[in-house]
């Protein structure tokens, strides 16, 4: 890491505009984390049209702050409402909700927020050191290496998320097909556009995301669900911890960070696995095992830290290699793209100031989040009072503006509705959505790397396995594909060990 560049970035991130956008992102992020039906990926996509007129730097700072903020806000709902919205909060909800029921909501919220802050700070710190190093490595990577890495990201995202590996892979392939609509990148021949001039330009990323998350989710609830206002647990006093609770929290925070960050860097498909691992780890190490299941603070501290460290970890491959490992990261990649900035190894060469401003802003956003989350927690709970139907109506109006304002085209709106209906079917039949997003965004990039490889080798496919890196990557891919079976084998082992120990 170049210290002078970092300091320059830090100074730059302290300008009033950038601080303002960081704060705005932190507030919006916390909000979307708390509100049901809207996650960080959708929030960022919905804001695309709003940012057309902004400096790229300001917009990206805001998006990163939203990403971090959603992690903070997510824990609030899982503790107070027991409706873990994102898979990363499932583990927090187990102990956090118990704690809230026994009147210890304040401590649970405090350990979650401070743990998130600690993990986010450490994670961002490692990001600052690791990303340039990995970007350096990225500069030496060949197109076959990149292609292998993208295939790995494809496979891990599809196989590690969701319950059915075949559905994950199908969803991914469908995403790649959606990404293929438009024209052939080399010859310019129309592809999958059926003589529709509008389709030849391809589907806009914003439209795909907005329709899959907003339109599809609302339609899905209309089709087969009922909105429920959850019962909010009472928060007595403020969000703070006693000395003993601090003592029980700090080690889980650090252990959670140690689990969460590396699994964010590797395309391990999101925060489900690290939070689970952190939870079981804490349960095993705890001196108060009897409390687990009844509201053990370690069970909140660890997974929450893992969740946040995971988010900062995911930024490493995004910034350094241009490869997203989660749905939100994929949307961020699209955001970079919107400003014609190429995330990836060249980013550190071409736009050093931007990168370091962004990293510095992450530190600041993390700090701002701690401030706006802890003392103001009671205010945040109030926004849970917005009735669901109105919330979704507002989201859909915004989603349609987002889709319309790109080209003022009715065709785009119809595409959004069409993909929305597709998204309903996917949800209904248990297909995970994230692989589709990754496929649609990363697919065209994978095609370019594939083409480049083929040009280098003049059509010889063996080039795809020409470097040690490609071998290592494809080996990891096979492990990822076999993961459900490995997991099935490991999970009872971890749990059984747990049970025998307790006896």
């Amino acid at each position, binding site marked *: 890491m170049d210290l002078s560049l970092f300091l320059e970035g830090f100074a730059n991130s302290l300008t009033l505009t950038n601080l303002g956008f960081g704060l705005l992102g932190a507030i919006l992020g916390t909000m979307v984390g708390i509100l049901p039906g809207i996650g960080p990926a959708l929030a960022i996509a919905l804001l695309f049209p709003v940012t057309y007129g902004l400096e790229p730097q300001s917009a990206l700072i805001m998006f990163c702050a939203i990403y971090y903020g959603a992690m903070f806000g997510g824990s609030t709902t899982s503790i107070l409402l027991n409706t873990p919205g994102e898979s990363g909060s499932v583990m927090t909800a187990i102990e956090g909700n118990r704690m809230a029921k026994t009147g210890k909501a304040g401590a649970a919220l405090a350990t979650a927020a401070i743990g998130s802050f600690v993990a986010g700070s450490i994670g961002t710190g490692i990001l600052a050191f690791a990303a340039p190093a990995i970007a350096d490595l990225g500069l030496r990577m060949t197109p076959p290496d990149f292609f292998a890495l993208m295939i790995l990201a494809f496979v891990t995202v599809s196989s590690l998320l969701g319950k059915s590996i075949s559905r994950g892979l*199908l969803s991914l*392939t469908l995403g790649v097909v959606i990404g293929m609509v438009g024209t052939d990148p080399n*010859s310019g021949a129309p592809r999958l556009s059926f003589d529709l001039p509008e389709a030849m330009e391809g589907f806009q990323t914003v439209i795909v995301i907005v329709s899959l998350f907003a339109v599809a989710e609302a339609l899905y*609830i*209309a089709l087969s669900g009922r909105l429920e206002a959850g019962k909010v647990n009472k928060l007595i006093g403020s969000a703070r911890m006693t000395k003993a609770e601090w003592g029980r929290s700090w080690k889980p925070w650090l252990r959670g960070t140690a689990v969460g960050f590396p699994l964010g860097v590797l395309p391990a498909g999101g925060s489900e696995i690290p939070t689970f691992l952190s939870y079981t780890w804490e349960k095993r190490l705890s001196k108060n095992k009897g409390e687990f299941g009844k509201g053990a603070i370690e069970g909140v501290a660890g997974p929450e830290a893992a969740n946040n460290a995971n988010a900062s970890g995911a930024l490493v491959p995004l910034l350094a290699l241009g490869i997203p490992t989660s749905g939100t990261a994929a949307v961020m990649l699209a955001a970079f793209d919107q400003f014609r900035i190429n995330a990836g190894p060249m980013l550190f060469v071409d736009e050093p100031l931007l990168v370091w401003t962004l990293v510095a802003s992450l530190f600041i956003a993390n700090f701002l989040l701690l401030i706006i989350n802890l003392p103001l927690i009671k205010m945040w709970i109030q926004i849970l009072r917005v009735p669901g*139907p109105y919330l979704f*109506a507002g989201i859909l109006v915004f989603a349609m*503006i987002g889709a319309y304002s790109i080209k003022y085209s009715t065709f785009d*709106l119809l595409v959004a509705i069409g993909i929305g209906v597709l998204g309903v*079917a996917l949800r209904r039949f248990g297909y995970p959505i994230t692989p589709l997003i990754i496929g649609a965004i990363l697919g065209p990039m994978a095609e370019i790397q594939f083409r480049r490889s083929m040009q280098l080798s003049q059509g010889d496919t063996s080039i795809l396995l020409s470097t040690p890196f490609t071998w290592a990557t494809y080996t990891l891919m096979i492990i990822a594909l076999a993961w459900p079976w490995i997991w099935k084998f490991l999970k009872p082992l971890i749990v059984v060990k747990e049970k025998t120990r307790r006896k």
Partner: protein
Amino acid sequence: MTRSTKRSAKGELVFTSFLFVVGVVVLWDASQLPQLGIADFVGSSTFPSIVGWVLVALAGIQLFSVARGNLGQPEEVEGARIETKVYWKPFLLMLSGLLIFALGVPFIGFPIAATILFTMVVYALKPGKTKLLVVVPIAAATALVTYFGFTLGLQIDLPLWLDLNFGTTEVIVEEDW
């Protein structure tokens, strides 16, 4: 198997077949692409063909799997209870709201289209308990606030009012971003 799971099995079979057909369409489309471009060693159709074959193969396997009773679990949604039963009425209500917006916005303007969309979404999600007198003002207020927010605050043009010049094509001057 209860009636509703039988029906959802049928639905999933139809959907999986749809994915299979998409794969076939991708393959057909790939075969229509020009064979070799300049400095292009594998041709335009290689990548799409691979994707097409993968989709056909995966969907084919999945068809068998679904036919054998391996049905997908409906996804859960934050803040909502998901049932196995299907309610077509609210679904179609919301869908028509979206379609009215999509087809109508160039003609009836954004505020009206958004008010209709907002109202229909609320109705679709809260069947029975909604009063038109409450919803429409909220919807109209939201529509107007977003309209002015976008046009004045963000310089994003949205059609305001009835545009009855169906024949003339709109000319949009793109501003520098």
